[in-house]
């Protein structure tokens, strides 16, 4: 896969930790790849597996979900539900033939600015190596769009 492929990554960030973590990374002037598009949620527990699958069929190359560490969720256990759903969704993607690595869940606390930059860097690199999302290309071709 050529290295000038520029992946599109959708990031779902939790308002209470990861979004603040991203903010900290920003104000600390940390460098990370500009490939992520952020959607802020009040809790990662808001994420329906359908959001993830929909993003992938609509052409993003990777989905990053970042939330609070277990036990630190603002609402108690929202992130634990997400963990279960992500495990299921990864299997779902695998079973229809999309690399499960395109979906990544990470715990990033509000104080972990450097970790956020690191997570984005690593995930962008990984998605780059995976290449364009086959589902998006395939379905688009079939529909002649």
């Amino acid at each position, binding site marked *: 896969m050529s290295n000038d492929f520029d992946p599109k990554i959708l990031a779902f960030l939790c308002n209470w930790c990861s979004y603040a973590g991203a903010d900290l990374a920003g104000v600390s002037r940390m460098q990370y790849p500009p490939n992520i598009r952020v959607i802020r949620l009040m809790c990662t527990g808001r994420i329906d597996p359908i959001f993830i699958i929909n993003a992938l069929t609509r052409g993003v190359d990777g989905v990053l979900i970042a939330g609070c560490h277990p036990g630190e969720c603002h609402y108690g256990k929202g992130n634990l539900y997400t963990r279960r*759903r*992500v495990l*299921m969704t990864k299997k779902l993607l695998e*079973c*229809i033939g999309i690399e499960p690595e395109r979906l990544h*869940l990470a715990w990033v606390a509000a104080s972990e600015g450097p970790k956020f930059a690191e997570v984005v860097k690593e995930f962008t690199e990984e998605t780059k190596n995976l290449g364009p999302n086959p589902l998006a290309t395939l379905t688009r071709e079939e529909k002649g769009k």
Partner: protein
Amino acid sequence: MENNFYLAWSPDSKIQEMGSSGGAVTSLLKFALENKMVDAVLAVKKRNNSRFDAVPALITDPDLVHEAAGAMHFAPLNMVKIIKEYLDGAMDMRVAVTCKPCDARAFIELAKRNQVHRENLFLIGLNCSGTFLPTVAEQMIREAYGENPQDLAGEEVDGGKLIITLKDGSTREKDLEELARQGFEMRENCLRCSYKIPRMADIACGKWGNKGNAATFIEICSSKGHEFLEAAVQGGALVMETATDEQIEERKRKETEAVENAQAREKKELDELKGYSSQQRLEYWVGHLNRCIKCFGCRDACPICFCKECYLEPYRGCIPGGETPPDIMFQLIRLSHVADSCVNCGQCQDVCPMEIPLTRLYNFLNREVADIFEYEPGVDINQPPPLTTVTDQELFIDPPDIIYEDASAR
């Protein structure tokens, strides 16, 4: 009553004749209706007396219960959707339902989600060694057996053979494997299904273990089952005797054999899919799913699908209306919704006019998901669905990709 294994039959010779193994179930249903232990019975009966046209029937008159007597192997019905959709989940009536293992499991799954009222249901589980699609069966009788399908009076599956009885009383038998070679197979989900005895129902009835007697082998699986049978015996509607160890062994042996066959079949089919590269898998599924004509049949037939505001409707903004084939999201949404609780009943594939192998897709994912969450759908009513529960222990497990401490060791 201490033992849970019994042989039972009806004291009424007329019912004995109509039922397949001593008429115990028919007799029990009749007794329950007569004594107002249930308000109605939901069972399967023949329409126009054709063994290839089974329809579900809600029976409230005890004198009509006999219409539903006898086993049917060409009746891939699902009773669950009927209770949920048309009887308000049995919220205000007590219903006795005859169910195959897949029906019983779907009832349990829906009860966990508060869609059916388990307390009002009396589940009479019937052992099931698999069903044929009616169209396949009709053709099979005509071509493989060389008989007129209308002459069929009964059929049974025993020891790897399909034995049919004709109206003149004669029987013909053929090996299931040989029939499969000629292209007449059971429904593929049945071949993969390793639930042959529905222990999640209140009682599990079948002929395994009856040693060729005209009696039904009954395993009691709940206190409700106990209650009903005891009442029926005392009311003189049922004759029961404790099963001997030998009979229990015999039943166990037949079950093990059937389950092993099914597991081997499941492994073979799923391994084939697992063997595909991800590129091949994607092409395989997208190829199939692009034949979809968006009839919503799979959603409407699925016993597990219950959302009132369905994501597949265009107004939800996910699937654009008026397009065929629909967006690939159509199937993926359904897949993500039934992933944890698909009971492999095969309804979606049966109704699909385009013959998309949907059950294979759902079952494939469900097996994978079952491994992660250590969850078997429809077995234990007290085990909550894995995607809508979390446990307190998980608060102390940090890695984002495991939910059990021991999972890292696996």
